[in-house]
């Protein structure tokens, strides 16, 4: 008798994923139906999906998304540019690396949200302070990534810049930045992620607009279904941006 062939691996993988999602949903629904938590603390999955659908068709979400996007965008632009400049400048000189490298690593270690009081004192409680926080969050990973790449760059690039007698600007734009492009992309990937987190946390603490603000409004009204819907939406956006940047990074590495 012919032995039945086993299902392909991808079928088993897909089945396991679907089964896992079903178990998670069933467990969540069990919690929602049980009296383990007070009413409304764990909303039904249908309520969350309904709130997500409503949010997607509301102008409020898009205006808040615009504010958050503006804050993250400004942060990434400023932090990324400053990070590249710092990384190349410090990485190109072993002396500067040994002088300022430890300071950069030290300041990069702390959670950026603790700088919020300083940002509020310097830039106010509006968009500018969250943009400042986003700038700080993006600056350190980009600077450290570019710094490391410039430091470990093939010496021939440095010799090339010297033998061609390039000016500092020409050397940076024609040699160092193209040579460290994958590291810049990697730093930007990390920086954008951290910038999103810092801006959102800043908005949950003190703001007048933005996704973090909308999230805290839902929390304040005890509309937990809307709050979870917004968190899920933020997760999807962050993961999608990360996946997109990973693809660009792969393409840059494979050139």
């Amino acid at each position, binding site marked *: 008798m012919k032995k039945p062939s086993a299902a392909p691996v991808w079928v088993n993988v897909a089945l396991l994923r679907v089964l896992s999602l079903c178990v998670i949903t069933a467990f969540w629904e069990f919690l929602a139906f049980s009296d383990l938590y007070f009413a409304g603390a764990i909303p039904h999955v249908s309520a969350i999906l309904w709130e997500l659908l409503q949010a997607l068709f509301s102008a409020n979400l898009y205006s808040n998304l615009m504010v958050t996007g503006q804050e993250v965008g400004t942060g990434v632009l400023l932090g990324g540019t400053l990070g590249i400049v710092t990384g190349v400048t410090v990485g190109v000189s072993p002396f500067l690396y040994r002088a300022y490298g430890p300071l950069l690593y030290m300041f990069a270690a702390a959670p950026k949200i*603790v700088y919020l009081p300083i940002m509020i004192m310097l830039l106010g409680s509006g968009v500018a302070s969250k943009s400042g926080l986003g700038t700080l969050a993006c600056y350190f990973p980009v600077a450290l990534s570019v710094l490391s790449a410039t430091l470990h760059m093939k010496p021939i690039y440095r010799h090339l810049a010297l033998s061609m007698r390039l000016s500092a600007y020409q050397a940076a734009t024609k040699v160092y930045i193209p040579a460290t492009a994958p590291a810049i992309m990697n730093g930007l990937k990390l920086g954008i992620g951290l910038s999103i987190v810092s801006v959102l946390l800043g908005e949950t603490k003190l703001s007048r607009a933005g996704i973090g603000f909308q999230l805290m409004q839902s929390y304040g009204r005890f509309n937990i279904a809307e709050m*979870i819907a917004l968190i899920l939406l933020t997760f999807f956006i962050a993961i999608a941006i990360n996946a997109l940047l990973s693809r660009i990074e792969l393409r840059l590495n494979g050139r």
Partner: protein
Amino acid sequence: MRPWATRLRAAVPPAFGALSLIAFLATVEMLLRVGVLNRFIVPFPSEAILSISRLFIDEHLAVRCIQTASKIVVAVVIIAVVGIPIGTALHTWVIARRAYYSWFAGLASAPLVILYPLFLVLLGRGTGAIVLMAGIAGLTPVVLKTIEGLQSTPVGLVKLGKTMQLSNFGLFSKILLPAALPAIFSGLRIGLIYCTTNIIALEFLIDFDGVGQLINLLSYRYDLPGTYAAIAFAILVCATILLATDGAERWVKRTL
């Protein structure tokens, strides 16, 4: 060159870096004194440095450090106890690894810390919510690095174990685990850093206990020197943990 001269030459760049920081603070102090910078926005650096002792006496900074450290320890124990077995199970069960690896990688890039309002609703505003949130943020590197470490065990060693007729447990405890230890340690180190930053951030955000809450309290009181000193202290705490774990990781890699 003589050894002392080499050592002296090596000390010049860090000294230059430290002097630059001191020069920056001195410039800020001078600009504040002549009125170019607003003293109601930026405190005198000298006042901020002197207020560190006040933070220890009046604001019980030592006790707050212990509160933060104890949360970090509990969170790291959680990520080790949960993360290493999950990583091992995913390494052993190929279909599960294929199904969940991308989920864990996706989680690593998700802004998990914004889940904190949900945890406040479910667990209340307290240590439990902070530790669990930090544990979730620190779990993914431990799982991913455990898988990476176990996967990268040299095939020759595994074959050797099989020819010695080791049981599955014997193969794991005698060959796979020792070979994966440097990667697991690396994952735990990243997890510890995630836990530390998340715990301080959450203490600040939900205004509960520890070094993070102190920054919040002082900024509400508009105690500018105190706020800046507390932020500087938080940076120092994070940098010290980073340096210590960096050294420990290098030691583990050298020893194993």
